[in-house]
């Protein structure tokens, strides 16, 4: 029995030793979580590439006040419950000082309470649902929010496309999709438009013919598809099958190279709102595109640009605190003002959101996006 006790004690000691990993004072640990696999895989991959560019730049230039940045990335496969697990691991086991993530609002919403409870500052590159930062003084974002994006889309539909009757196609499982459609509806109706029909699906579905047939019978002028790119591309393909010629519009969830890969020619001529356009002639943007292309052999999508900006804003705040983390860093982050990012000038407001312009892009059959207009907040 005694032997058993001592071996047990030893086991606990060993566990405790593993648990209290000694923190290296000369390293700032940055945790990242994202969907590197699953139906929204390009979101995670693009964001990670953007973040990695900044971290490598900083480390090559000697770090911040002599401290190197260490990036620890985890994949949660696009599952909110998995996001909870990896973020808990980032905080409890890897003892990260800052968290960067997620693109999809459902996953950011799952992770934000954990970051808040542990007082680890979290920056979401591109979660647009307003609830992500609401009431959480440690959670920030560097993108615009859905009330703004919904308004931009509704105005565009009503004023530029002259649409009167609209249909909504919503992913009921996604906080982003439901929220965006809601804000679109409010503005569209207040501008004298009418939402004639609303159809739902669940993320991961493949067949949309039923919903589309119902929408077709209502003769609408425009269809808002507030989902993510895989389902958007499949929907457009099936819309073509059904002879639907109505214009689709949607939000930044459309942005992925997979959109044209899956959708083929069917995606031609539809519109979506996004964080930046590759046609932007600003040298900052063009320089970013050139460097990204050289590294990854691909034109950066909006989410890569947002990942890049999120990391830049973090580095900027770290420079102002001389590499100090914790509450000081949080305050510095909150004080971010007129920071020039590639997706626009970023100022963090009192609700920890960034107010920034949105762009409307037209999808071309060859997979490129044509710049249509810029809308300021």
């Amino acid at each position, binding site marked *: 029995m005694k032997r058993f006790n001592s071996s047990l004690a030893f086991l606990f000691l060993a566990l405790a030793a593993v648990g209290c990993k000694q923190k290296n004072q000369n390293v700032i640990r940055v945790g990242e979580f994202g969907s590197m696999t699953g*139906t929204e*895989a390009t979101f995670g991959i693009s964001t990670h590439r953007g973040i990695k560019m900044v971290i490598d730049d900083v480390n090559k230039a000697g770090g911040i006040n002599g401290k190197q940045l260490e990036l620890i990335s985890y994949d949660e496969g696009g599952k909110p419950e998995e996001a909870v697990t990896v973020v808990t691991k980032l905080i409890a086991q890897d003892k990260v000082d800052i968290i960067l993530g997620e693109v999809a609002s459902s996953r950011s919403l799952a992770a934000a309470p954990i970051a808040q409870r542990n007082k680890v500052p979290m920056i979401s590159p591109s979660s647009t649902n307003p609830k992500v930062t609401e009431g959480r003084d440690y959670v920030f974002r560097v993108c615009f929010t859905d009330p703004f994006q919904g308004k931009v889309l509704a105005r565009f539909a009503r004023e530029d496309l002259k649409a009167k009757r609209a249909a909504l196609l919503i992913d*009921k499982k996604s906080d982003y999709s439901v929220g965006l459609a809601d804000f679109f509806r409010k503005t569209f109706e207040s501008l004298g438009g009418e939402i004639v029909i609303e159809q739902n699906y669940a993320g991961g579905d493949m067949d949309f013919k*039923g919903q589309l047939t*119902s929408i077709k019978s209502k003769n609408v002028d425009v269809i808002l598809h507030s989902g993510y790119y895989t389902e958007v591309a499949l929907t457009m393909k099936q819309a*073509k*099958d059904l002879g639907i010629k109505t214009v689709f519009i949607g939000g930044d969830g459309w942005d992925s190279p997979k959109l044209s890969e899956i959708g083929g020619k069917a995606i031609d001529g539809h519109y979506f709102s996004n964080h930046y356009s590759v046609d932007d002639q600003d040298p900052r943007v063009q320089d970013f595109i050139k460097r990204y292309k050289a590294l990854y052999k691909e034109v950066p999508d909006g989410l890569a640009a947002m990942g890049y900006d999120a990391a830049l804003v973090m580095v900027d705040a770290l420079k102002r605190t001389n590499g100090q983390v914790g509450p000081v860093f949080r305050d510095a982050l909150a004080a971010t003002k007129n920071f020039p990012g590639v997706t626009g000038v970023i100022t963090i407001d009192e609700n920890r959101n960034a107010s920034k312009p949105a762009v409307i892009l037209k999808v071309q059959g060859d997979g490129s996006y044509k710049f249509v207009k810029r809308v300021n907040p």
Partner: protein
Amino acid sequence: MAQFLQHLVNGLSLGSIYALIAVGYSMVYGILQLINFAHGEVVMLGAVFGFWLAPKFMYPVEPSLGLFFAVLGASMFLCGLLGFFIERLAYRPLRKSPRINCLITAIGVSLFLQYFTQLEFIFGAIPQTYPEMISQATVFSFAGVDISNLQLIVVGLSFSLMIILQFVVYKTKLGLGMRAVSENTEVAALLGVPVNKVISFTFILGSMLAAAAGTFVATMYPKVDAMMGTMLGMKAFVAAVLGGIGNLPGAVIGGLVMGLAEEFTVGYLSSSFRDAIAFAILILVLLFRPAGILGKTKIEKV
């Protein structure tokens, strides 16, 4: 009216795919009383094989119907082989064990194939785009009803395959063997039916149909991922139970009923109920007609 007809067309094209998968479940059940949960994964692998092979075939040939048939044939061949090995390695050693062991093994095989496919060097966990072999076009458009060439090809081929299967089961010697084994395995063996061969053949046949279904799904909805078999398999299983598991025409009817029920739910009730309705139907059938639409009620002797 046009809307109703369009829903009917959509439902039939979806239902014919369910039917094709359901037939595979039913065949295996009829012969071994085993619910082969790995069947949905064979469907997924049918699509994955096509994803690998199409670009290899595409080099000399342009995307065309001929290419589609070549890929379909190759994928069916490979899945037939896979079906043979699944039975040989996983189910045959357990033939004499209690049924629950086989069932759990089937779930194991299903999970193994799912996660094995997700390995980075096999296929990966990122959904891929299925190559376009037939360029999409609307071939029939009348009074607001549109039918695409893909839908026609899928429905036509599904029914041809099911008719061929019917022929194999009722007009060939192996089919006779299948029916004999499903009636009574021991007596069939005593009468000289090569039971092992017949069972292997059943698995090969079922897996080939699954491969065809996988190819059709990927052609209509050009997204391939390692998890796509789960929901398809589940729905087809419900279809098989609905029609009367072990009964082939029943599986076809079950598949069509499922496709139409889903489509009309989306069209006339609410699109949120889509998957719920499939499983509600299963519960209702089990309550009122436990043997399914065409199934015979068997009295089990204890």
